[in-house]
């Protein structure tokens, strides 16, 4: 795991979630910029996943490889799904739907970091 990417992912997810909930609270629909930010977050996660996947081959031995890769896949599935749900019915609640997915991504990025750093060297 690239530490600064993890930090960026968690911080970015939390920021996106905060903006998403704020949009809902202020009765606004997510605009193109917000969607672009959600995709940027997803792309960052994808970059991280590729790096981790390459590093995991011949790298430190993970104690729970199946759990680790499960989180990796799940962290990539959540946001595209939420964006679809949010777009299918455009309303003030779209921002909160994306915020829920962003929170899930933050949690999973944290779990991935934990599992990675607890791997034996």
């Amino acid at each position, binding site marked *: 795991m690239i530490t600064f990417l993890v930090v960026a992912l968690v911080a970015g997810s939390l920021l996106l979630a905060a903006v998403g909930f704020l949009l809902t609270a202020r009765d606004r629909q997510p605009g193109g910029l917000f969607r672009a930010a959600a995709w940027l977050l997803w792309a960052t996660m994808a970059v991280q996943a590729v790096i981790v996947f390459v590093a995991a081959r011949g790298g430190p031995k993970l104690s729970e490889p*199946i*759990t680790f890769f*499960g989180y990796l896949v*799940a962290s990539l599935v959540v946001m595209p799904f939420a964006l679809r749900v*949010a777009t299918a*019915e455009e*309303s003030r*609640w*779209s921002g909160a*739907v994306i915020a829920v997915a962003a929170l899930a991504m933050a949690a999973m990025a944290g779990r991935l970091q934990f599992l990675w750093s607890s791997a034996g060297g």
Partner: protein
Amino acid sequence: MPTGTGPGRVLVAAYAVFALAATARAAVQISTKFSTAPLAYLLSALAAVVYILATIGLASSRPVARRLAWTAVGVELLGVLAVGALSIAVPDAFPADTVWSGFGRGYGFLPLVLPVLGLLWLRRTRPAAP
């Protein structure tokens, strides 16, 4: 009013995340270390099924889905209360964590909050009595 619209979409999204997380976790537990704590892992699997059914029930607008959602969310609340209380009262019986252990402590207590929100939402969107 259908349960999967407006604020209900946020609830459905949260349930979908939990359905994914619980299913994946139960699958890993049962496939890799089932014999170490069969009861806890069976409960994980039950929780996963409940979350999947609740997601479907809340997302769909068919009348039968509402009954499914009531049942699934009700079972979920009973499950998190029972397992939460038991895991604190008799920790030895729960050597391994489930989603519902300690009232969902490992998941920011969301497993306790979600069914309450779900039941309130189902009541709020209940069709008017004929």
